[in-house]
């Protein structure tokens, strides 16, 4: 059980929780990855406002770095575009789902409100950003060994890159959210309410995140298509319609 608000060994607010200076910033990053419950208690229960900028910076740095690796195959222009768009997906998803996540937290009985749900999810995405950022050099190395967009075997290279990035992002997401789940369970009024709330958040964020990534396409520019920040018709169609049409064209439906 997490103790909070008191003095003594329960909370042990060390200097890193004060979030001052780059050294403390990196200490916080390490503590986040370990799922340090004292830090989370300090951030979420105490309602630390400075936890939000820390998480946002970690998301921007981690996901931005990984985004730049995704765009790297297509040249410097796409490197910058994807570095901007990958963190943007997370922030836009949280904006669209923010109110809903707060309402679901309350209605499902976890007693996690709007602000706390935002802090939880930002923390989860910060862990995901850290994981992605840490994997960026490895993925960059793999990317460098793939055929480029204008080389022979570009289609195979594109498909392999697509699968690789999907797998890495999924893995980072799962790792981050598994870490977060145990924290949500502890903070919620009951363990089962925490699990239900967490699952509802994840479902909602996946559903909306897929659509926002569709609106912000391209990320992996298919061979033969132009590099651009957004497609000329970003709001024409949605992810699920496109998936349905793709299945239809394969005569599966």
């Amino acid at each position, binding site marked *: 059980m997490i103790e909070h608000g008191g003095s003594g060994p329960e909370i042990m607010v060390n200097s890193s929780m004060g979030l001052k200076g780059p050294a403390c910033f990196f200490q916080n990053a390490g503590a986040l990855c370990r799922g340090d419950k004292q830090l989370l208690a300090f951030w979420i229960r105490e309602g630390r406002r400075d936890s939000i900028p820390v998480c946002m910076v970690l998301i921007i740095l981690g996901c931005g770095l990984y985004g730049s690796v995704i765009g790297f195959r297509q040249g410097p222009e796409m490197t910058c575009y994807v570095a901007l768009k990958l963190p943007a997906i997370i922030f836009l998803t949280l904006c669209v789902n923010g109110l*809903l996540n707060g309402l679901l937290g309350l209605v499902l009985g976890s007693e996690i409100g709007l602000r706390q749900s935002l802090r939880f999810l930002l923390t989860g995405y910060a862990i995901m950003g850290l994981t992605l950022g840490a994997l960026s050099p490895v993925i960059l190395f793999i990317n460098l060994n793939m055929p480029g967009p204008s080389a022979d075997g570009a289609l195979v290279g594109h498909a392999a890159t697509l699968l690789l990035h999907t797998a890495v992002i999924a893995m980072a997401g799962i790792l981050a959210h598994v870490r977060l789940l145990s924290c949500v369970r502890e903070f919620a009024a009951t363990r089962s309410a925490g699990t239900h709330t967490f699952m509802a958040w994840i479902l909602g964020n996946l559903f909306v995140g897929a659509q926002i990534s569709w609106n912000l396409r391209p990320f992996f520019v298919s061979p033969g298509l132009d590099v651009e920040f957004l497609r000329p018709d970003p709001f024409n169609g949605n992810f699920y319609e496109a998936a349905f049409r793709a299945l239809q064209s394969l005569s599966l439906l």
Partner: protein
Amino acid sequence: MNDENKDEIQSAPLDHRQGERSYSGKVYEPLEGGYNLANLIGFLLKKPLAIINDLEAQKKPGRVIFPLILISVACLAVFGLVVGTFSSQKIDDIQIWAAPLKIVGGLLFSSLLCLPSLYIFSCLGGVNARFQTITGVLSAFIALSGLLLIGFAPVVWLFSVSSNSASFLGGLLILLWVVCVGFGFMLVLRAGRALGMSNISHVIIWCLVFLVVTLQMTTTLRPIVGDDGSLFNFEEKKFFLRYWGEQVMHDVRPENKRDPLE
């Protein structure tokens, strides 16, 4: 029978349950903070049984019911406005105001249709409560569903501006409605238990009836999503499953890949 005795009998199921208060520690908390909208919304989300408890204890339940109806109307109107953005190319388009009107009107009318059956089915399930209390339970149910729909409004807006297919958006709206109304049903069941319900099967049947009525209302008041050039289509009577099937088949056909509105 004097008023004191009457009050005692009316609150009997709650008093019986109040024995559990000390056990769970948070089942029935008093509705503190008055009947302003913000306070009621807070209680509706966090401790809805406090509202039910207050309704049963109140001599003037209208003080609770009226704000709940106000919350429902406001939430449904905003949600309807977001739904209306799918079909409206410009701000003076008919659907931008017709969709909220139809959603608010349709849901209030559905509630009115189902209110007597909720009272009877609750009584069959063993609930010992006044008609006003059941009206309050229904109001709280609609208000909670409306609040959750407001939470979904940004999601609906995103898909509304992105989707080409009216069937997709219609399907999404129905899914969201079922989710929201599911939370409402849980509230009704919890309220029923708090009011002494011994058998939940009757109220579950009522929940299904209510769901079918609201789904049929989407077909009766069509078009709500999409625009077929008319405000209402009362002449052609259809069961909702048949109407939805026709719409989906229309969109799935390869020659209708794009929205005919475009």
